[in-house]
């Protein structure tokens, strides 16, 4: 039991990213409203970002901006002191991608709305069938 609890606590980030991912996925699959789906899509993407950033964490390390300057003596930088910057870089890209996707998706949603005057998928499909 204790092990189980410690497992939960230790990997809390990972559990949460899975939870968020599932929320997003559920919204994308099961929600009826297109904008809701877009919200779900963004949550989904954020979950992946959360995962990546979690992989970069180092306990007891500081942010990946090297302390330097006149007051700090020039000494070899120890990598263990700084958080892994690589996931951050990757996730910057991922955030940008998610914003871009968001923009495009919303534009398409507007287009859809002005064709069918509805954002509800079932209503739209009904209209299509009725046509």
């Amino acid at each position, binding site marked *: 039991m204790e092990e189980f609890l410690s497992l939960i606590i230790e990997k809390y980030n990972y559990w949460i990213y899975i939870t968020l991912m599932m929320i997003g996925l559920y919204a994308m699959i099961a929600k009826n409203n297109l904008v809701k789906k877009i919200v779900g*899509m963004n949550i*989904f*993407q954020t979950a992946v970002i959360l995962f990546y950033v979690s992989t970069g964490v180092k306990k007891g390390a500081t942010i990946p901006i090297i302390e330097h300057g006149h007051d700090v003596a020039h000494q070899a930088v120890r990598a263990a002191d700084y958080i892994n910057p690589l*996931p951050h870089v990757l996730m910057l890209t991922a955030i940008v991608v998610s914003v871009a*996707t968001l923009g495009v998706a919303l534009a*398409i949603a507007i287009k*859809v709305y002005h064709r069918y005057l509805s954002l509800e998928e079932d209503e739209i499909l009904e209209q*299509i069938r009725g046509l």
Partner: protein
Amino acid sequence: MSEHYPALLVILPLLASFFISAAGWLRPVYCFPLAVAALGSSLLVSLGVLGDVISGGPVSYWMGGWPPPWGIYYRVDYLNALVLAVVSAVGFVNLIAARPSVEKDFPEKAGPFYTLYVLFVTGLLGMVATGDAFNLYVLLEIAAITGYALIALGKGRAALSSLHYVFLGTIGACFYLLGVGYLYIITGSLNMEDIARLLPPLYDSKVVTVAFAILMVGVWLKMGFFPLHAWLPNAYTYAPSPVSSLVAPLMTKVMVYVMIRMVLTVFTVDFAFLVLRLNEVVVWLAVIAIVMGSLLALAEKDVKRMLTFIVVAEVGYMVGGFWLGNQAGFTGAVLHILNDALMTLCLFLAVGNIVHVKGDSRWESLPGLFRTMPWTMGALVVGALSIIGVPPTCGFFSKWYLLLGAIQGGHYGFLLALLFSSLVSVVLFFRIFEIGFFEPFGASHGSAHGEGGPAIQEAPLGMLVPLWMTALGLILVGLYTGEIVGRVIRHAVPGMML
């Protein structure tokens, strides 16, 4: 200059896209020539790379001058040199064919259209050339976003279908990204070959297995592998015809390439075929994909939509062929990437011509087409024969290898599925030909010299020339299959499969 080819391949169209975009605002007339120049030069470069690879083996290029595990690098080997050539060729040919319908359907948006077009091809080229797992994701998104926009440009349901594509495409891309993340968390690297080097001791870890699973699911989603194909038919059907003839031949094929690359280079064949032993399962999935794709195609009454289901079935060919896990199957799968790209291009271009003239591709608009659009229909026949697998069109040869692979691997289900889908394609296409040929019933029967009939009403020459280039390409590629296999694909076959 030749050592910069792998970079130029992507950079030239990328730069051109900026100029096209700017030209769209300042001098719209220059958009099309710029796009042609961009993709043309990219085609030349990709052929150059292919030549380099054939003569001197794989080429690699360090972006920014940083060595591989730290920087991003491009690596062109036998496998992707071929795919690169295909992608740029298809992009180029289709671009030429796109012009008349762009000018007809959305003349005022030609600038952004060509921009996105070129960017789409750029994304695909980059995906094929890159040797970095994350870079692939970014390029994937470029191709995806441009794809969404281009597809949503169509009429009717296009926007809704495109939105669905956005959702499923995003899920797919995120799964891919997550899979790369799983690999990163246990290896610490993003470079494909570096990962492959670090992975073997970790084969037992569940993380690798799950990474593999989600990567595959992501890639399958993107390529429209059967149970995950839901977005594909609608998206490709309602897209404007120059777009569907761009996206349909390329997107799925490149994703198949990505799958092969992932299994081959990242996870290595040993893992996929020996540790996981997934091949049986996947081949059966492919069998289902082929059969279902064919059956669903039977139910359609719209040529374009029917073609999209054929694409679904063809994806099954390639996936199944690859997962057969033997040399013939692998050769067949890679060859089919090439052939299917050309075949689908040919068919979609032909349908594009029909849509251009008739405004629609449903069966109601087909009657009498053999008389009014003989050239288009002729090319359609060539493409159809290729899909059916009639020699000497190239479709036969990849099917040949796939069948051979199925027999070598003792996988008769796959064999039967292939034959079944060929038969179904016969039915499918000959239904179309019948309609185009027979209806309206005997309308011109008995007229003076039989040549009276309705006047010929063909698509513009700008669309016919690329179409026939493709159609002839089908036969040429078919005849040179031996060369292609012997010089290129043979070297790409991983050692274990030999």
